[in-house]
């Protein structure tokens, strides 16, 4: 029985640790970093009043959003209007559940067999992530349509057309990862990269995957759905208070998910360096606690680099035109992805 108790405690610990870190620390810090980098890029200071270096600014904003008057615009379709922000958070949280954030570990001998550091050990984790992240289209469409506002409807239509177009490209890019690893289990995909990170054989699919995830998260070169200047802010124009806060939170946590996916697929997850494993460095990441912590931190560091890339790109690049955006998705990325699968399969077959 005590084994069961330990297992449940471990599971609870994983859930609290991961969701706590992501929703409580990563998302607010990301927002702070985003605004600080924006300040630096545009030669201003950025947030600097609340807490040291303005670090608590996100917290203050969160409290403000929580305490704001729950405004319900007159024209909205009430049930769907209230449902949409909740639906937007659910895929963001669900897709996290299958992301392994560290190597399988015995936690320094606490367990007999190595336990996986993911909340739900799905053996089809990759497919689950793809399926669940594509659900976020529903919240966008519902929010836009139920707001009964021209800008919102336009933003929602743009967002959904863009998300489904780029989902194809990212899906086909991921097929080549499956080809290379022979598995849809995220832990096995990382294990398969011990010899060589998939960025090297799959360089082409990485460069299809990267713009695709930028587009799916509606980040700047592809942020047409939110384009402030023409659509105000798109599908969440009519949202305020905590309802807007939920959209905001889910946007940043989905950013973290896709960054973690990119690291898992192409940059070897928690593996040390290309062709140089932890074992070769003399560190046992499975059986010693310090090794597990090191590997997990290494994975987190890689994800942070990716998150910084998101922010960096946002404040560097201008916005596309909408026809350019759809053209890039359908006429460039899709054929490249198909060609890439063909090449990788061919090289592997012969």
């Amino acid at each position, binding site marked *: 029985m005590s084994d069961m108790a330990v297992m449940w405690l471990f599971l609870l610990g994983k859930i609290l640790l991961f969701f706590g870190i992501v929703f409580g620390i990563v998302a607010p810090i990301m927002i702070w970093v985003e605004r600080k980098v924006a300040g630096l890029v545009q030669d201003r200071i950025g947030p600097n009043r609340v807490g040291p270096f303005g670090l608590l600014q996100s917290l203050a904003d969160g409290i403000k959003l929580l305490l704001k008057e729950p405004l319900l615009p*007159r024209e909205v379709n009430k049930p769907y209007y209230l449902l949409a922000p909740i639906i937007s958070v659910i895929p963001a949280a669900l897709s996290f559940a299958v992301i392994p954030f560290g190597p399988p570990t015995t936690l320094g001998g606490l367990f007999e067999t190595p336990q996986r550091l993911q909340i739900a050990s799905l053996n089809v984790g990759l497919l689950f992530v793809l399926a669940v992240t594509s659900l976020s289209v529903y919240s966008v469409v519902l929010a836009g349509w139920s707001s009964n506002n021209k800008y919102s409807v336009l933003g929602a239509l743009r967002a959904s057309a863009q998300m*489904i177009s780029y989902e194809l490209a990212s899906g086909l890019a991921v097929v080549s990862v499956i080809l290379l690893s022979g598995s849809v289990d995220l832990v096995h995909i990382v294990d398969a990269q011990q010899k060589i990170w998939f960025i090297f054989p799959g360089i082409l699919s990485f460069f299809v995957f990267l713009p695709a995830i930028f587009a799916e998260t509606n980040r700047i070169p592809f942020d047409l759905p939110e384009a402030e200047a023409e659509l105000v802010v798109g599908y969440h124009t009519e949202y305020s208070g905590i309802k807007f806060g939920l959209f905001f939170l889910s946007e940043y946590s989905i950013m973290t998910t896709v960054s973690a996916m990119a690291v898992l697929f192409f940059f070897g997850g928690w593996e040390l360096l290309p062709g140089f494993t932890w074992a070769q460095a003399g560190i046992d990441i499975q059986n010693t606690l310090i090794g597990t912590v090191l590997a997990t931190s290494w994975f987190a560091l890689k994800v942070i680099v990716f998150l910084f890339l998101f922010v960096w790109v946002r404040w560097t690049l201008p916005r596309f035109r909408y026809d350019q955006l759809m053209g890039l998705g359908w006429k460039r990325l899709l054929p490249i992805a198909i060609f890439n699968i063909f090449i990788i399969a061919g090289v592997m077959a012969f």
Partner: protein
Amino acid sequence: MTTLLGSKRYYPKKTNPYECGIPSEGAENTRFSVKFYLVAVSFLLFDIETVFLVPWALSFQKFRHQGDGPYLFVVGAVFLFVLTIGLVYEWRKGLLEWNR
């Protein structure tokens, strides 16, 4: 959503649909171009084909170890070729041009 306890003071100006400060004009639920619909339909087709590619990719390693790699490659190549024909057809028909 516990903030429903807070004070609520609604008045018409506040609850109007947002329109840059001027009163909203025209019906909100106007109809939209069929372009979005066409994109959605072609997404469905291609996404299903992507789904078919996943089990193929998944079993590739196993078949390769059995020495059936070239056979599986030809199967996949034929499938990809058909997929490409579909894409080329859409392209030629101008379905991918956003502003026709």
